[in-house]
């Protein structure tokens, strides 16, 4: 069964450092997303990406965040200068057509110290 792959599974970084979280969406999917989940809380939408541009973003997704699809297979989330409160699980998702076939990856646990 096709899956969304995320790397690394765990990342520890010092406050103020830049991090890049990587995702390989399902190959025939056209819509890409990032969500985050702070420990013990619900999953929150960050950003959606379609046709090489951001289609929607939440208020969490401020100027410290950016996304990129550098090639035909990867989808990345960059946090420019990490803060302690950025510590969370970050999930990548992709879908084939809007809401259809929505599939989540296993996540990257980011710990900012």
């Amino acid at each position, binding site marked *: 069964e096709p899956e969304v792959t995320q790397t690394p599974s765990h990342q520890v970084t010092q406050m103020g450092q830049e991090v890049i979280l990587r995702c390989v969406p399902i190959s025939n999917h056209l819509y890409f*997303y990032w969500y985050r989940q702070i420990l013990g809380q*619900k*999953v929150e939408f960050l950003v959606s990406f379609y046709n090489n541009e951001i*289609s929607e973003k939440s208020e969490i997704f401020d100027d410290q965040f950016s996304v990129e699809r550098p090639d035909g297979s990867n989808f990345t989330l960059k946090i420019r200068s990490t803060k302690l409160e950025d510590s969370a699980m970050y999930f990548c998702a992709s879908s084939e057509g809007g*809401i259809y076939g929505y599939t*989540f990856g*296993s996540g990257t646990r980011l710990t900012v110290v």
Partner: protein
Amino acid sequence: GESVGLHLPTLSVQEGDNSIINCAYSNSASDYFIWYKQESGKGPQFIIDIRSNMDKRQGQRVTVLLNKTVKHLSLQIAATQPGDSAVYFCAENRAGDYKLSFGAGTTVTVRA
């Protein structure tokens, strides 16, 4: 405000019994609902979905019920097994929107 939420944060169930997990939503514009299962250290895994033009949908051992009158969604798991122990989230989607809004989650623990 607009939100999707679950009634109870935890549910303890005897193995073999049926489980019912509830979710309330407040946005009448929502027209698509999904139940996800999340096991420890993993991402949300699709269980079953339902559109607002339906009130019931069945899958393998799972049934989702939608009551649009009271904006209530439930997930029924038949003959609960130890492998069903996880956090369950409902999520909703509004027409024309591609993001999902998640509820707070219910932790289901299956007792042997």
